[in-house]
């Protein structure tokens, strides 16, 4: 029975980790669909979400111990505030860095988000130093045991929160005017403009929405893993791989990609080597791109942007 419970354990851990990748991948997809930008600062939203939540809820010395943040807010309130703050940061990023570069090439815009990623990382280093931070688990209590595999309550929270966010996003995109407008923008920017949809507003919305999703991802994972100023890099990378696995423009694909990547990683780390756990994502990415390339070449797909009819 040992193998069965071990596999089940991998599945539980994989799905939990994968949920986070899925959320970050969703953030990538939302911004990419609406603006065409690959946002390198996506993982930093998660890092900021977690560290802001920590600062609001527990006594935290910040800015090189010059200040001590002693808000001591209850966890739920801290979480909500943190998500709001990070959403605001997403808006600020858009207004300060993306909007002023209007008309710049996609490459320039991507370089801007690379710059933003490092600016965020440096600011976080100044604010929180290089220490690892954690949050308390959301609910106390022993773990569940299923066929010898352990599922902690926090794991359930991660999976549950991800499911709720997905449902909320689904309702937002399918049932609200704003969501439909955003989707129209993603399908065809030109047509959306013809319909009178303000592309700038939609781009802003995509950054705010991605920031909020990212923040939530960072917060919900932090009780199970530590978060530090440089965690954003890995989260961005993994989220990106998940988004690519899902095709880079499909929300469903991003979620499936995230979950699969989480499972691959856990199984790979378990069977092969935990030292190279972080390398697995890139081997997967590389394999996908290679396959996509050969399939694309065989199908004679256009390598060009659609130049208009």
């Amino acid at each position, binding site marked *: 029975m040992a193998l069965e419970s071990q596999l089940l354990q991998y599945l539980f851990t994989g799905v939990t980790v994968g949920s986070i990748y899925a959320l970050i991948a969703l953030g990538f997809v939302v911004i990419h669909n609406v603006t065409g930008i690959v946002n390198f600062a996506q993982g930093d939203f998660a890092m900021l979400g977690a560290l802001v939540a920590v600062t609001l809820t527990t006594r935290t010395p910040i800015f*090189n111990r010059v200040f001590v943040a002693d808000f001591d807010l209850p966890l739920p309130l801290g979480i909500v505030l943190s998500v709001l703050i990070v959403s605001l940061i997403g808006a600020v990023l858009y207004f300060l860095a993306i909007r002023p*570069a209007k008309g*710049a090439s996609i*490459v320039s815009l*991507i370089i801007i988000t690379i710059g933003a990623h*490092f600016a965020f990382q440096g600011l976080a280093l100044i604010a929180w130093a290089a220490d690892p931070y954690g949050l308390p688990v959301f609910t106390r209590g022993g773990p569940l045991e299923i066929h010898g595999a352990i599922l902690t309550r926090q794991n359930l929270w991660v999976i549950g929160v991800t499911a709720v966010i997905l449902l909320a996003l689904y309702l937002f995109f399918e049932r609200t005017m704003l969501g439909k407008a955003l989707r129209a923008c993603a399908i065809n920017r030109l047509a959306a403009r013809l319909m009178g949809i303000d592309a700038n507003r939609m781009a802003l919305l995509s950054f705010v929405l991605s920031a909020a999703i990212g923040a939530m991802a960072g917060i919900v994972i932090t009780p199970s893993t530590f978060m530090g100023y440089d965690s954003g890099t890995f989260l961005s990378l993994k989220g990106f791989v998940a988004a690519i696995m899902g095709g880079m423009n499909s929300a469903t694909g991003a979620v499936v990609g995230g979950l699969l990547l989480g499972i691959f990683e856990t199984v790979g780390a378990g069977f092969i080597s935990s*030292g190279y756990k972080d*390398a697995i994502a890139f081997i997967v990415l590389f394999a996908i791109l290679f396959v996509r390339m050969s399939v694309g070449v065989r199908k004679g797909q256009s390598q060009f942007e659609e130049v208009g009819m």
Partner: protein
Amino acid sequence: MKRLAGRTNAIAFIVVAGLLAILPAFLANNYQVSILILVALYTILTVGLSLLMGYAGQISLGQAVFYGMGGYITAWLTVRAGWPPLAGMAIAALITAVLAYIIGIPMLRLRGNYLAMVTLGLNVIFELIVIQETAWTGGPDGFRGIPKFSLGGLVLRTDLEMYYFAWFVALLVLMLSLNIVNSRVGRALRAVHGSEIAAETMGVNTAHYKVQVFVLSAVYASIAGSLYAFWLGIISPSVYHISFSIELVVMVAIGGLASVWGAIFGAATVTLLAEFLRNTLPHLLRGASGEQEIIAFGVILILVMIFLPEGVTTGVMLRYRRWRAGREALKEIKKSAETMGAE
């Protein structure tokens, strides 16, 4: 000088080489010589990345990996296998080229900006390998005992000798790059940059040239990495951190995309700025380790891309040329208005 493209470039070469030759006479200490050696190495790295970013329109966040491969492979071949330095350097460049080629093919054939993320990931993996495979790389303590560069009986012992050699290689790389830019291959690359679709329909295999320029940038990086290893005699993982790859992108942004000469300017500016920040930040911010300099680089990247998306030198030159063309056009209009009045 016949081998140089254009007279301006030839004159520029003589001037720059002359300045670099006499510069050491004005340097106060060895520290300043070391900084200038770094500028030479970073110039080599920046030229390659500038061609990649400027012509192929692709970003590499993994140039530190190729720099590191140059260093580690050279170190291993010279120390463990007892090879002569030049052979070690050449084989390192060859292996690096093969890796870049393998990575480049899928990345550059697909539409989209995968290369940036993939190379970023590559950098992460490279660091893992270098730290974990202690038996091969020396692990976190570094690879020690790399010999000085030597060729025949000539050994480069002092920093000053290394200074001249590093700049000799840097100028050689600049010259080769200028030759490439002003050739059929360079025109194809510039065409890709101008309009990828038009370039394709003119018979340019765009993917092929993108891969070539990526491989070229990797080879340059590897050569710089070998020189670095010969110079210091020890290499350790911290040098090849992602933040160094970012610094290189900043150098390109400042030196100008697709600008060969701008590379020196970009490399010098960022190297000096980084030294300055490393020395002053800890005083400004109590307990700052100096790593906070990445904020400055992040902000510089954002500002440059907003205001001068072609990079600082290229952008300024372009604006100057446009201004001058505008003024000439104005003059012509005035002149024709006058002659019309005379009739």
